C-alpha cells in the first residue's frame, strides 16, 4: 500500500511540475500559437541568402492587404473606395492605408534619365542600331507627326529621333492593369469599375491580435461602404485573411475534435464500466499526458503550431488506451482484483504497446522538418506521460475490486469472441486475408501521390475566389519563384542580371512569361552603357553634316543640331549608377528587388511574372554562374515527395523493428501472428485510399506509421489477455472506439494534411481492430 501511495505522490509531484511549468510559460507570454506556414517548412535552399530572400519577400507581401472596390459607375466606385479607405484609416490599426496615389510626376522620371540618354537604348533599338543603317529622317517624321505618343516623351529638341522616348517606353512601369484615374488606381472588368486600395499591417500577419483587429476594421469599413452604396462590392486578398481563417478553423477543429473525443470517450467508458471512477481517472491520465505534451513542446520549440494543436486534440483517443487496458483488467478480474498483481500482469503488454507507438513517432522526430518533428515530439511526450500515469496513479486510486459482475459486463465482447473462435479457424483466417488482399490490389494501382505544399494550409474557397478575381483584374502575379542574382560589385550584379534578362526576353517572346522585374531594366550596367553610347556615336552622331541636313529638312531650327552635338560630347563620361537610381523617388515601388550588400558582395532578385512552366525558368538560370532560380514551393514539394518515399522505406523498416520486438516476447512464429492483422490493415488502407481516389501524401504515410503503432497494440493486448480474453477484447474495442472517434473527426479537418492523416488512421485502425481477434484463432489453438 505504501508503495502505491509513494507512486501516487510521485505522480502528483510530476503533475504539479507540469502545471507550474505551464503556468510560467503562459505568464511569460511564451505560449504563441504559430499560424505561419513558412515556420513549419524545412529550409530548402542550399544558399542561405536565398532562404533569407524568401523570408524577406514573404514578409513584404505578408504585411500588405489589398482590396478592390467595385461598382458599375466609375464615380460611385471612387466614392465607395474613398469611404472604405477613410474607415480603415479611422480604425487606427493600419500603419498606412493607400487609396489616393501620390501624384506620379513624369518629370521626375524624365529628369532622372535625360542626362544619361546617350547611354540608354531600348532592347529593340539596340538591335536596330547594331544591325544596320538607321532611318533617322523617318524616325524624326514619326516623332513629329504622331497624333499621340506611346508613353512618356521628351521634347523634340531633346530627342528628335525618339530613341530616348523608346527607352522610357520600355521601362516596366506598367505591368499591372491598374491605371491612375482621378487620383485613384482603377481597373475595369466584369462590367464594373474597380478601385485599388491597399493597407500595411502594423506587424506580422500571423499575430492573433493583429488578425482580430484587421478583421474587425475591414468588416466595419465594408459595412460602411454598403451603407453608402448597396451595389458596391469589396474584394480582399492578403496573408492575414488566410492566417486568420486558418486560426479560426483550427480553433474550431480543436474544440470539435477535443470535445467530440472527450465526450465520446467518456460515454464509451461509462457504457463499459458503469462507474464514474474510470471516467475521472481516464481524464486525469489523458489530461496529464496532453498537458505534459504541450509544456514540453513549448519548451523545446518555443511555440506551438496550430497543426500540432489540432493533431494533439486527436491524440486524446490514443492516450486513453493505456488507462483503458488497466480498467479492462480491473473489470475482468472481478472480485479477485489486487492492484499491484493486476498491474504486473498487464505491464509487459502496455510497455510493448508504448514502445511500438514510440517507434512510429520517433521516426518522425528525426525528420529535419519542423512540422513533423513538432507533432512527433508532442505525441511522444503525451503518450509516455499517459502511460506513466497508469503505472503511478491508477493502482493507488483504483485499488478496490470491481463490484460489477465481470460476466455481464463483458457479455458482448464474450459473444463476439466466441463467434470469432467458432467461425474463424486458421484456414479461414488465411483465406480471409488472401481475399482481402485480392480486393485491395486494384486500389493500390489507383494510388496517386500529391506533394503540394498547400496540403498544409486550409484555403477557404471564398478567399481563394476573391484572390483569383483580384489577380485577374489587376494582373498582379503570385508566382513564388524568383531569381537570386549575386555580384562582387554592383556593376557585376547588373551585368549578371542583363545576361539573365536576355534569356528572359526570349521566354517573353515565346509567351512563356508575361514579363519580369529586374534592376537591369531600370539601370543598364556601365559596360552596356558604354556599348550603347558607341552605337549612338556610330549611327546618330558619326556625321554631323548629315545630322544637320536631316534636322533642317524636317523644318527644325538650325541650333538644335548644334545643341544635340554639344550635349552628346558633354555627356561623354557620365554614367547612370544603381546608387543614382536607388536615390530617385521613382525607384520606391521597386526597392524590394535590391537586397543590398552582403559578405560576398551584392545581391538582388529578379521577379518573373505570369510563369507558365517553371522548368523553363530553371533552363534560363542554368549555366549562369551568379544566377540561382529560387523556387521555394517547388523545393518544398520535392522535399515532401522525398519524405513520402523515405516514409515508405521507414514504414518497412519499422515493420521489421516491431517484428523484432514481438519476436523477443513471442518468438518468431507468434510474433508474425501478432503482426499480421496490422500488416493487413496497412495494405487494405492503401487499397481503400486508392479506391477513394484520395491522394497519397506524406501525411498519409505518417498515418500508416501510426496504424502500425496503434494496430499492433490491439493484437498485443489480445494476445496478452489470455484467460481473461473477453475483458481484454472489451478494452481493445473501447480503445479502438476512442481512437476511431478522434481520428475520424480529424478526417473532417479543413487542413488537407490532417484530413488525409485522419482518414488513413480511420481506415487503418478500423481494419486493424476488426482483424485483431485473428491472433486468438492462432494462439488459442497453439496453446490448446
Amino acid at each position, binding site marked *: 500500500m505504501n508503495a502505491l501511495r509513494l507512486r501516487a505522490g510521485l505522480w502528483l509531484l510530476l503533475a504539479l511540475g507540469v502545471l507550474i511549468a505551464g503556468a510560467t510559460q503562459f505568464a511569460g507570454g511564451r505560449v504563441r500559437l504559430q499560424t505561419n506556414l513558412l515556420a513549419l517548412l524545412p529550409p530548402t535552399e542550399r544558399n542561405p541568402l536565398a532562404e533569407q530572400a524568401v523570408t524577406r519577400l514573404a514578409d513584404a507581401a505578408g504585411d500588405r492587404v489589398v482590396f478592390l472596390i467595385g461598382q458599375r459607375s466609375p464615380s460611385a466606385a471612387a466614392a465607395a473606395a474613398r469611404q472604405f479607405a477613410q474607415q480603415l484609416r479611422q480604425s487606427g490599426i493600419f500603419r498606412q492605408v493607400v487609396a489616393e496615389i501620390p501624384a506620379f510626376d513624369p518629370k521626375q522620371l524624365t529628369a532622372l534619365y535625360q542626362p544619361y540618354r546617350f547611354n540608354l537604348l531600348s532592347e529593340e533599338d539596340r538591335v536596330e542600331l547594331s544591325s544596320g543603317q538607321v532611318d533617322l529622317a523617318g524616325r524624326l517624321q514619326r516623332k513629329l507627326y*504622331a*497624333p499621340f505618343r506611346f*508613353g512618356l516623351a521628351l521634347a523634340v529638341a531633346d530627342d528628335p529621333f525618339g530613341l530616348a522616348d523608346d527607352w522610357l517606353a520600355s521601362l516596366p512601369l506598367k505591368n499591372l492593369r491598374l491605371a491612375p484615374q482621378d487620383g485613384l488606381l482603377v481597373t475595369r472588368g466584369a462590367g464594373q469599375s474597380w478601385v485599388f486600395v491597399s493597407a500595411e499591417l502594423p506587424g506580422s500577419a500571423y499575430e492573433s491580435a493583429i488578425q482580430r483587429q484587421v478583421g474587425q476594421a475591414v468588416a466595419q469599413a465594408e459595412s460602411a461602404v454598403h451603407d453608402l452604396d448597396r451595389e458596391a462590392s469589396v474584394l480582399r486578398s492578403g496573408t492575414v485573411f488566410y492566417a486568420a481563417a486558418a486560426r479560426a478553423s483550427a480553433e474550431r477543429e480543436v474544440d470539435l475534435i477535443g470535445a467530440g473525443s472527450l465526450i465520446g470517450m467518456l460515454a464509451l467508458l461509462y457504457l463499459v464500466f458503469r462507474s464514474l471512477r474510470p471516467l475521472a481517472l481516464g481524464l486525469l491520465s489523458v489530461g496529464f499526458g496532453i498537458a505534459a505534451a504541450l509544456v514540453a513542446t513549448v519548451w523545446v520549440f518555443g511555440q506551438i503550431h496550430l497543426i500540432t494543436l489540432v493533431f494533439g486534440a486527436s491524440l486524446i483517443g490514443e492516450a486513453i488506451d493505456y488507462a483503458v487496458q488497466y480498467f479492462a483488467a480491473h473489470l475482468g478480474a472481478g472480485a479477485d482484483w489486487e492492484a499491484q498483481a493486476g498491474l504486473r500482469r498487464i505491464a509487459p503488454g502496455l510497455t510493448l504497446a508504448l514502445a511500438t507507438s514510440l517507434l512510429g513517432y520517433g521516426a518522425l522526430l528525426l525528420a529535419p522538418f519542423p512540422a513533423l518533428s513538432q507533432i512527433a515530439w508532442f505525441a511522444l511526450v503525451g503518450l509516455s506521460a499517459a502511460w506513466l500515469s497508469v503505472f503511478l496513479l491508477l493502482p493507488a486510486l483504483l485499488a478496490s475490486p470491481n463490484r460489477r459482475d465481470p460476466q455481464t459486463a463483458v457479455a458482448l465482447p464474450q459473444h463476439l469472441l466466441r463467434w470469432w473462435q467458432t467461425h474463424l479457424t486458421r484456414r479461414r483466417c488465411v483465406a480471409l486475408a488472401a481475399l482481402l488482399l485480392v480486393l485491395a490490389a486494384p486500389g493500390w494501382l489507383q494510388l496517386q501521390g500529391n506533394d503540394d505544399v498547400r496540403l498544409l494550409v486550409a484555403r477557404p474557397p471564398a478567399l481563394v475566389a476573391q484572390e483569383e478575381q483580384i489577380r485577374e483584374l489587376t494582373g498582379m502575379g503570385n508566382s513564388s519563384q524568383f531569381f537570386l542574382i549575386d555580384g562582387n560589385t554592383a556593376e557585376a550584379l547588373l551585368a549578371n542580371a542583363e545576361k539573365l534578362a536576355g534569356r528572359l526576353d526570349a521566354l517573353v517572346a515565346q509567351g512563356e512569361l508575361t514579363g519580369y522585374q529586374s534592376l537591369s531594366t531600370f539601370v543598364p550596367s556601365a559596360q552596356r552603357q558604354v556599348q550603347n553610347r558607341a552605337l549612338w556615336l556610330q549611327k546618330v552622331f558619326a556625321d554631323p553634316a548629315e545630322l544637320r541636313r536631316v534636322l533642317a529638312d524636317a*523644318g527644325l531650327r538650325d541650333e538644335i543640331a548644334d545643341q544635340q552635338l554639344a550635349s552628346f560630347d558633354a555627356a561623354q563620361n557620365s554614367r547612370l549608377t544603381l546608387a543614382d537610381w536607388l536615390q530617385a523617388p521613382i525607384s520606391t515601388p521597386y526597392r524590394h528587388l535590391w537586397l543590398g550588400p552582403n559578405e560576398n558582395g551584392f545581391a538582388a532578385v529578379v521577379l518573373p511574372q505570369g510563369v507558365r512552366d517553371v522548368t523553363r525558368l530553371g533552363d534560363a538560370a542554368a549555366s549562369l554562374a551568379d544566377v540561382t532560380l529560387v523556387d521555394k514551393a517547388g523545393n518544398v514539394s520535392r522535399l515532401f515527395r522525398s519524405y513520402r518515399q523515405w516514409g515508405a522505406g521507414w514504414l518497412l523498416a519499422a515493420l521489421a523493428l516491431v517484428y523484432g520486438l514481438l519476436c523477443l516476447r513471442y518468438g518468431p512464429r507468434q510474433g508474425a501472428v501478432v503482426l499480421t492483422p496490422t500488416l493487413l490493415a496497412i495494405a487494405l488502407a492503401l487499397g481503400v485510399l486508392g479506391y477513394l481516389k484520395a491522394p497519397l501524401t506524406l501525411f498519409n504515410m505518417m498515418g500508416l506509421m501510426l496504424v502500425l503503432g496503434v494496430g499492433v497494440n490491439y493484437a498485443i493486448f489480445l494476445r496478452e489477455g489470455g484467460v481473461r480474453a473477453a475483458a481484454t477484447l472489451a478494452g481493445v474495442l473501447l480503445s479502438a472506439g476512442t481512437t476511431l472517434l478522434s481520428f475520424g473527426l480529424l478526417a473532417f479537418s479543413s487542413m488537407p494534411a490532417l484530413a488525409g492523416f485522419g482518414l488513413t488512421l480511420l481506415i487503418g485502425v478500423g481494419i486493424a481492430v476488426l482483424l485483431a481477434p485473428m491472433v486468438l484463432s492462432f494462439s488459442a489453438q497453439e496453446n490448446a
Partner: protein
Amino acid sequence: MSVLKAIVRLLLVATLAALTPLHAAETNTLARIGAQLEQHAVIRAEFTQRKQMAAMKRPLLTSGRLVLSRQHGVLWQIEQPLRISYVLGEERIVEIGADGARRERGVRDVPGLAQVSRVFRAMLGADSAALREQFDAAAHGDPAQWEIILTPRNAQLAQFLTRLQLSGGRFVSDISIVEAGGDTTQINFHHTQGSNALSDTELQLFGVDQTPSAKPAGTR
C-alpha cells in the same frame, strides 16, 4: 507637339483633385452636346492641323481624314505631307505606314494608353463626363453653336497644358490646344458626316475580321 501627345502626358499625371460640381445649366448643355453626337455609330471628317512648335522654323501643317467609330475606336489617317495612319482601339494601337506595314502595341503595355483611347474619343465626341474626370469644363452656347473650354484641374496637369478648347454645332468643328511650354495646336474638322456603318476598307484598317456571316453593323 501633337494634340494627343499632350493628352497622353496629361493622363499620365495622376490627379488629386476632388470632383467639383458644374453648374446645372452647363451640365445640361454638355449633356445635350454629347447626346447629339452619340446618335451616330460612325462619324467621318476631314481635318487640317496646324502645330506651332518652338523647335520648328515654321508651323507644321498636316491634313487627312478622321473616322470615329463608337464600336471600334478612332482611325486617324494623315494624307499630307506624308501618308501614315493610326488606329486607336480599346485594346491596341496600330501605326500603319505608307507601305501598309502595321506596328501594333497593346494599350496595356504602355502606361495610360487605355485612358488615352477613352479621352481621345471623348474629345472628338465631346463626351463631357469622360473629359470632366481630368478637366474643369465651362460651356457656352446651345447645341446648335457651342464652345467648351477645358482647364486642367491640378498643378500637375497644368505643368504641361494651359487650355483645351472645343467648339462646334452638330459636330465638333475646332479643337485648340495651348501647351504650358507655348506650343499650340489647332485642328479644324470639315465635311463631317454621321453614318451607320464602317466601309469594308475602314473595317480592314481597324483590323476587324470580316466574315460574311458576322459582318459588324454599327451600333444602334
